């Protein structure tokens, strides 16, 4: 449904995204993950037909986003980061306007349907300017859904919502994702974990990792982190566990237990259980836990940052130029943020 090949975008001297290549298949919900200023919004703006890339190509729903922009835009529902609403229009008029721009027959019924979908039918006659942030977000989503697009591009759809609304919007996206292709960006990892079939992690304009949230976790953690919980005091527990062969390091010590890492390919759990029981601890729990996506994410982006730093050091002669670029980068990031 979405094919991206070598997509690059420069803002003046700053390279926002570099050589992005990925595919999103039909019926998939793909999460686009990255810190602020990583290039998520830029990528989505290009895919939605808002601006052309500097290099590379993208095909959405079978249409080239540059050559057949109008056809592609017809197939895309897009919710930008700042929800684009007219505060002096009513919810109904706004959605009717969007439906008319997309030449939808029986637009008024369609508007009612989509309002029901986002649970906004009661506020249909209210002015958008009087709506809460969560409601505005839902109207924005309704606008992206009104023409039943094959592809939905959502830029940080849950930003600024309260927990109940976030839950609601995520459920809605999951619901929509059953029939349509969804590409959503977020910097909240748990969101990607909950909603997406697949995650693309992007940092400094490049894709760092592409995987399913589960595999990603498994691949990086490898089930090598094990948590032990006991009844009573965990005094000297860490010494006992680190003395067991196959345990590579203690990660964290808690009042009632220890998290530790084992060497790859080893299953030390039976040995740990035996040792604990014979040493007189009351074993309550012994289970492998993955790293959270947060930890993986930090690890990955830091790795990339380290590489970036190294390559910078190699170009000492270009130091001045680099620092200048960084400055403009910072300014641009602020603007984007």
């Amino acid at each position, binding site marked *: 449904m979405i094919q991206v090949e070598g997509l690059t975008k420069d*803002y003046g001297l700053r390279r926002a995204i570099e050589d992005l290549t990925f595919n999103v298949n039909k019926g998939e919900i793909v999460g686009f993950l990255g810190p602020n200023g990583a290039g998520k919004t830029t990528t989505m*703006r290009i895919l*939605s*037909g*808002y*601006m*052309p890339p500097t290099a590379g190509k993208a095909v959405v729903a079978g249409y080239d986003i540059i050559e057949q922009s*109008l*056809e592609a*835009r*017809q197939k*895309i529902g*897009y919710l*930008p980061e*700042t*929800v*684009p*609403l*007219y*505060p*002096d*229009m009513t919810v109904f008029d706004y959605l009717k*306007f*969007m439906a*008319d*721009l*997309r*030449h939808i027959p029986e637009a008024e019924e369609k508007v009612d349907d989509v309002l029901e979908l986002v649970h906004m039918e009661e506020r249909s006659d209210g002015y958008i300017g009087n709506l809460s942030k969560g409601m505005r977000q839902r109207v924005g989503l309704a*606008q992206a859904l009104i023409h039943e697009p094959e592809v939905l591009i959502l830029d940080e759809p849950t930003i600024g919502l309260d927990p109940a609304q976030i839950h609601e919007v995520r459920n809605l996206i999951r619901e929509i994702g059953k029939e349509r292709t969804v590409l959503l960006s977020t910097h909240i990892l748990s969101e990607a974990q909950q909603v997406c079939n697949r995650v693309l992690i992007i940092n400094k304009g490049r894709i760092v990792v592409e995987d399913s949230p589960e595999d990603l976790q498994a691949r990086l953690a490898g089930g090598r982190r094990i948590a032990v919980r006991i009844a009573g005091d965990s005094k000297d527990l860490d010494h006992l566990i680190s003395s067991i062969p196959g345990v590579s390091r203690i990660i964290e010590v808690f009042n009632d237990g220890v998290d530790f890492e084992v060497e790859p390919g080893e299953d030390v759990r039976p040995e740990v259980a035996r040792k604990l029981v014979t040493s007189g601890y009351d074993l309550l729990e012994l289970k492998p836990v993955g790293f959270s996506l947060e930890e993986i994410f930090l690890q990955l982006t830091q790795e990339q940052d380290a590489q970036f730093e190294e390559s910078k050091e190699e170009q000492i002669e270009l130091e001045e130029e680099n620092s200048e670029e960084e400055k403009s980068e910072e300014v641009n990031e602020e603007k984007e943020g």
Partner: protein
Amino acid sequence: MRNVFTIASREYKLYFATPAAYMIAAMTFLIIGIIFYANINYALVQQFAPTVEIVIGPFITILIFATPAITMRLLAEEQRLGTLELLLTAPVRDWELVVGKWLGGFSFMLTIIAITLLYPLVLNRLVDPGIDQGLLVSGYLGLVLITAALIAIGVMVSSFFSNQIAVFFATLGIYMVLWLISTPAQAVGATGAELLKYIDFAEHFYNTLYIGIIDLSDIIYYLSITALALFFGTMSVETRRWR
């Protein structure tokens, strides 16, 4: 083409939902009304029959100040609200957006112009044997043409900035230049003077349409200005994508 009407009709309706547009309309009628009344009084004292010029003359001046206030919002606000992103990612061509905005503003001004037809109607009853209809037609044709061009320039400038105050004054500045450019004509020699006179807005109005002469070249002049401004406006929206 359908998109043009969708956008224009949204704009047109929005004018009636905002107090600014009502204020502009009210001020227009108030000023024309006062001048109209004063002229009638003067004509009574001096014992002559006033023509439709007493409506069209002041109206043209008001147009120069009212039009930027009508057009400043059109594209600048879309940029400020971020809704330009919405329109540029909808299946709408850039020119459809610009022409739609123009048509919306133009329709609103046409409504105001249509309402001012009341003054000539009243005047027609006051003077004997009625007003000169030819003068009325050509004068109002001039008004419509000038409005079309002024709105187009306003839409163009509105696409340049996201700050409405900047748009207002930049638009007013361009109007002033176009209105007064032939003033230094005598100082620049023959060809220069011809050129300046050709560019000048007022030259195409006061010497012809205002006094009842309908000349095709004047009509073409105003239509060209309209088309040119809309073309530059479209270019400006298009370049926005490349930034």
